[in-house]
Structure formats: structure tokens, C-alpha cells
């Protein structure tokens, strides 16, 4: 029997497989497809202080082995998530959830954190400082060392839960940002968010996405994500949730060997809504094939 369990800052997960924020809504749609309690956990849709419509459509474009999205953080707002969505969630998900929050100012991050503090269902607060689809500044927190430090500080100061900072790959040196978050007290990191990309509608002679640019994710970005997790693992001592292009049990193992303590699966979940279930079912056999008896033991094994 392969031991699939992993641990994120005290949160014990049956397995390292976590659907990524923005690709699993609040879990409800998937709970109609299969029993989502088999998941390690899931990270819910990036939630902000106020409700948001997000960007105009089209918000989706296809790329080779990947996709662009410019959803722009459509969400019902933290109030509604806390008062309606989270209570309902217990009906279909019995484990703790990862609460992904976004903001346009430090105050907003703090506001959302305080709202989530009292909710037992929330296991980890995942602070998205990296969404590239927001024109009014959301991205800059994740691309600037000082801002990353400050957001982390501020959220940590109020949070009663472990705080994981979700990093942007659109930076010259991700280890600098990672280090800043660790210094500011982050309990863990999650990387990567999407790479900024674009497609052009050749017939219409204009960007395909109404927002012009969007975030690239899917298998195309896997080698970039893997490299960043590998680099950050050598730089910090806090756990890393690895994300970016994972779409198979082999990818999960590769990402863990690079240094991830758990993984998130985004775009692949959109392509195949059953992918996380399939991966969890395959993991024991694939692990065995590579002589792995416990997934915990391979974290960072490639270093």
C-alpha cells in the first residue's frame, strides 16, 4: 500500500491532489459528477471583498497544449461566500477547503481574511497576489518583492489560519518574491499562477480575448512551473503547493520531486472534469512503478 497522505502546515490531506482555484468553482458542479470527498482538498474560486462580474467575454482562448483565460475574478463576494456558499458546501464536501482570496488593496485581503477566520470549513487561506487579469493593480502585488512582503505581513497579522501565498510566474526571479513572503511569515506558498499570454483573431485583426491578454495555463506551462517550484524549494523552508500544467499521475510525482508538498490541478480539470478522480485512482500504481511507498518521502527528491 502506497501512502498518499501529505501534510500542509498541520492540515492532513489524504492525498496531494487539489483542484486549483478558478477551475472548480465552489465544488458544487463537480459534486454532481463524483464524490469529491476523495480529493485532498480543493481551492475555491478567487474571492474578493465585493462581488465581481469580471472581464467582458470572450474570456477563453485555446493554445497549443493549453488555454488562456481572462475571467477576471468573477465571484459573488466574500459576504455571500461566507453566508451562503460555505454553509452549503458542507452538504457535498466534508473536508476542509482552501480559501483563495484576491484583492485590489491590502485592506481587501485583510478584510476577506477576517471574514474567513471564524469558518471551521476553511483549512488554509490562499492569498492570490498574482492574478494577471486585473488591470487595476491585482497583479503588481505578486511581481514586486516589497508588495508581496506587505500583503503577506498584513494577512498574517490577522489570520487565524495557515496563510499560503500564491505567486505569479511573470517575474524575473521568483525566488526573490518567495523569500519575501517567507520573511513576512507566510506558512506556505502556492505556485504558479498563469503566465500572461495572448492570441489574436486573425480574421478580425484583434486580440481574441476581450481583455486582450489572458493567463496561460495547461500542460504547456508545466516545465516553467516545475522549474519555479524547484528553484523556490531551494530558497525557502515552508511547504510549496505546486501548480501549472499538471494533468497526470506522473506529473504529480514529477512536481513533488521538484519540491511540491501537494499539487493543484487547474486547466486539466476544465478539459476533463473527472481528471482529479482519475489521478487519485492511478497514483498508487504509478507510485509503485517508481518504487515510491510514501508520497511524503519524494518531496524534493530531485534535489
Amino acid at each position, binding site marked *: 500500500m502506497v501512502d498518499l497522505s501529505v501534510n500542509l502546515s498541520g492540515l492532513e490531506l489524504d492525498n496531494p491532489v487539489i483542484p486549483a482555484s*478558478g*477551475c*472548480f*468553482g465552489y465544488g458544487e*458542479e*463537480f459534486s454532481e*459528477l463524483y464524490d469529491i470527498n476523495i480529493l485532498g482538498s480543493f481551492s475555491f*474560486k478567487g474571492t474578493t471583498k465585493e462581488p465581481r*462580474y*469580471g472581464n467582458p*467575454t*470572450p*474570456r*477563453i*482562448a*485555446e*493554445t*497549443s*497544449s*493549453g*488555454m488562456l*483565460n481572462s*475571467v477576471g475574478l*468573477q465571484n459573488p463576494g466574500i459576504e455571500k461566500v461566507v453566508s451562503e456558499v460555505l454553509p452549503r458546501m458542507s452538504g457535498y464536501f466534508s473536508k476542509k477547503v482552501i480559501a483563495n482570496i484576491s484583492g485590489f488593496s491590502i485592506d481587501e485581503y485583510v478584510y476577506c481574511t477576517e471574514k474567513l477566520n471564524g469558518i471551521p470549513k476553511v483549512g488554509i487561506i490562499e492569498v492570490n497576489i498574482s492574478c494577471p487579469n486585473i488591470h487595476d493593480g491585482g497583479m503588481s502585488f505578486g511581481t514586486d518583492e516589497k508588495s508581496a512582503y506587505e500583503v503577506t505581513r498584513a494577512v498574517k497579522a490577522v489570520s487565524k489560519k495557515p496563510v499560503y501565498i500564491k505567486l505569479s510566474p511573470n517575474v524575473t526571479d521568483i525566488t526573490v518574491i518567495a523569500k519575501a513572503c517567507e520573511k513576512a511569515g507566510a506558512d506556505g506558498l502556492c505556485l504558479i499562477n498563469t503566465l500572461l499570454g495572448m492570441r489574436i483573431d486573425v480574421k478580425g485583426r484583434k486580440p481574441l480575448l476581450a481583455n486582450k491578454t489572458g493567463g496561460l495555463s*495547461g*500542460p504547456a506551462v508545466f516545465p516553467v512551473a516545475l522549474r519555479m517550484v524547484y528553484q523556490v524549494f531551494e530558497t525557502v523552508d515552508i511547504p510549496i503547493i505546486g501548480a501549472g500544467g499538471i494533468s497526470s499521475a506522473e506529473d504529480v510525482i514529477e512536481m513533488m520531486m521538484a519540491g511540491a508538498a501537494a499539487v493543484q490541478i487547474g*486547466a486539466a*480539470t*476544465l*478539459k*476533463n*472534469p*473527472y481528471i482529479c478522480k482519475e489521478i487519485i485512482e492511478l497514483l498508487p500504481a504509478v507510485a509503485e512503478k517508481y518504487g515510491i511507498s510514501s508520497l511524503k518521502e519524494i518531496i524534493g527528491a530531485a534535489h
Partner: protein
Amino acid sequence: MSEKYTVISNNVIAENIYRMVLQGNTEKITKPGQFISIGLDGFFLRRPFSVCDLSADKTTIIYKILGGGTKSMSSYKKGKELDVLSGLGNGFSIEKSGEKPVLIGGGVGVPPLYLLAKRLIEAGKKPSVIIGFNKSAEVFLREEFEALGCRTLVSTIDGSAGIKGVVTDALYQYDYDYVFTCGPMPMLKAVYDNTETGGQFSFEERMACGIGACMGCTCKTKYGYKRICRDGPVLEREEIIW
């Protein structure tokens, strides 16, 4: 919802237009206007297509070659197995229809109206049909609608078949009390502007998940934000914001 469908046939029926018949479990498809989403080798995202016809174990779609995905589909041979998400979307509610609905379709918006016409007739309604195309070479499903007993008008932009003009140019010929429509956005808008009865409008949007999880396909309605893939593709006339 995830099914394996096998290609039974895949034939050209008009210029760049193909009819694909698929065998497999159809029980998730409960309403006309729903769609299926097909995974294609070599393409990351699935492709959504409206259900055009349905039996206990067969689903028919009609699709146009638009880009790489549909081009690749056109080469699929009998026996090919496809990974399909089936029974997506809300579909048309025929309960809301009047006795004499008009079904208005444009281009590849026409296919879902065929199953809709069948269901309306089964429910004792008397649907009539207007279908619009660019030119006569692109016309399809006309005979099939007529075979159902529906009065069917064709419009073409260049006048090479039926009425010269757009679908709304044919509207005056009908006496109708409800509208079902599917087609490109400018056509939907024209239908909206040129009709006053209640109606249901089927929209398209670029999709990622197709199941309501990613917020990729949202539109604003008078009743709030709706996901075209899950809360749509069919919207009621009264909720539409253009």
C-alpha cells in the same frame, strides 16, 4: 455526463457543413437545445455542438468547418471513439411555447431547432420555421423540416435560395405567438428587435469547462450573471441584456 460516443457516420451535407451521427448513451440529453462537448485529439479544449437529433442510443450533430478543430473532425471515420460530455446546458423549455411558435435559425444555429421542432410537434404545437444562410450552397435541413410537416422558409443573403435577405425579412409571412431562435449574435439581436412575443434565444460563447465551473462563458442578464454553458445557452427574451 462523460460518455464514449462512436462515430456512425460523418458526411458532408452542404458547403463545409457535416452531419455526424454518434452512437452512445444519450440519457443525459433531456431537452432540445442542449449540447454535447467533444474532446478532439491534439486540441486542448473541447468543442461544443448542439444536439440536432436524438434517439435512444444515437445523437446527431451538424457542424461547420470553422477552424482547426472542426476541420480535424471532418476527417473522422466511422468507428472512431470520442470522449464526450453529454447533456450540457438548460435547453429550450417547450412548456412555455405558444400554439404557433416560429423557429428561427441562422447557419449552424439551425441544428438544435430540428430536435426542438420534433418535440414541439409531439407536444401538439404547430411550429413554422425560418432558416437563413449566406447562399444556396450552404442550405441544409430544409427538407427535414418540411418532412416534419413544418412550413419552412429559407433566406439567403445573396438570394441564391429562398428569400433574398435575412431571416427577419421572412417573418411577416407568418402568424406566430412565440419565438425560438438560435444563430449568430447579430441575427439574435435582429430577431429580438423585430419580434414582440415571448421567446427563447440560444447563445454561443467561447467555453472552457462547459459545466459551469470556470466562469469562462458568463453573460449579464436582467436576472443576474448567467453561465451560457450551464444556465444557458437558452435565455428567455425578458432577461436578455444586449
